[in-house]
């Protein structure tokens, strides 16, 4: 169990490490035109970094999710994506169902 002082330092370190990327992004944005190639490249890199994070969250999750089976996570994800497509891109239904599906399947 970490001490209170260590926790506060960790919160500060985490917040700073996070804000640096956001603030640098805001500064860089001032020099980037929407029509430029650089903007398009950043757009592609942003989507792929995000996708990489999501891929990792499903295949190698952190936290409690790592206590579930990979195959079950994949089944839940694919089922919910299919529901999303069939419900004309409703996001509420697949997200609620994902929690229910995983909780049930994880107990089998």
């Amino acid at each position: 169990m970490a001490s209170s002082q260590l926790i506060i330092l960790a919160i500060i370190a985490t917040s700073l490490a996070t804000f640096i990327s956001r603030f640098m992004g805001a500064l860089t944005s001032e020099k980037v035109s929407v029509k430029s190639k650089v903007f398009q490249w950043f757009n592609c890199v942003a989507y792929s970094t995000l996708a990489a994070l999501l891929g990792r969250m499903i295949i190698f999750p952190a936290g409690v999710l790592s206590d579930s089976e990979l195959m079950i996570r994949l089944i839940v994800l694919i089922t919910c994506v299919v529901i999303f497509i069939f419900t004309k891109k409703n996001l509420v239904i697949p997200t609620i169902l994902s929690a229910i599906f995983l909780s049930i399947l994880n107990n089998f």
Partner: protein
Amino acid sequence: MINPKTFFQGLKSLKGSRSPAIPLGACFIALGALLKDAGFNLQQSAASSLFTYALPGQLVMAESLLVGASIINIFIAVWLVNFRLYPMTVSLFPLLEHKSQPKWKYYLSCHFLAVSSWLIAKDSYKKIDKKHRIDFWIGIGMGTWSTAIIMTVVGYLSADYLNKDMLIGLAIVNPVYFFCMMIGAMKNLSVSIAVIGGTILGPLIYLISTEWALLFAGLVAGTIAFLFGGKNGK
């Protein structure tokens, strides 16, 4: 100052069938419970979401604390996992730029940059008059940010009533929501290549380097998407 009409338009993105409130709520409830487990008190848990507001980084922080990592190590690990916010900001803020708007709005509201708010803004910025897009963004950000903080507190307070199966269920909601949003965003070739490439390369590179996986996968898949995707509409 801030245009109230567009601000509330942004805030209202929390409502409706594309609302990020449920996934955000679910994952921050799970985070609140995890932080309690890691020895945080209520104020510290709320402060973490208030000042950091980036779930993967907060997860890294909590897990690093549990294994006794140093502050420097936590800083580097969080910076690496949250570096994605840099290209995300650069691919969104130029769309919100307007000469008449003061810079402080951009410098402060960059704190609201997170996957959910980014995806909503990218999905709906075109509907908003260029002059007030930053106010629309501040509206989205205030909504998603405050949801995250409140739900962290709720998660902390309800930690004793949540069993492991419920927490696992809550934790899957976020990646499922993001995947659906990303699939919805695959409207042109370059974004499609970027999303598919990133999804495959992220876990693959993770096998070689856990810390640099996101950065490398993003750069490689993003550059391939840029080169082969042709003209990019978004």
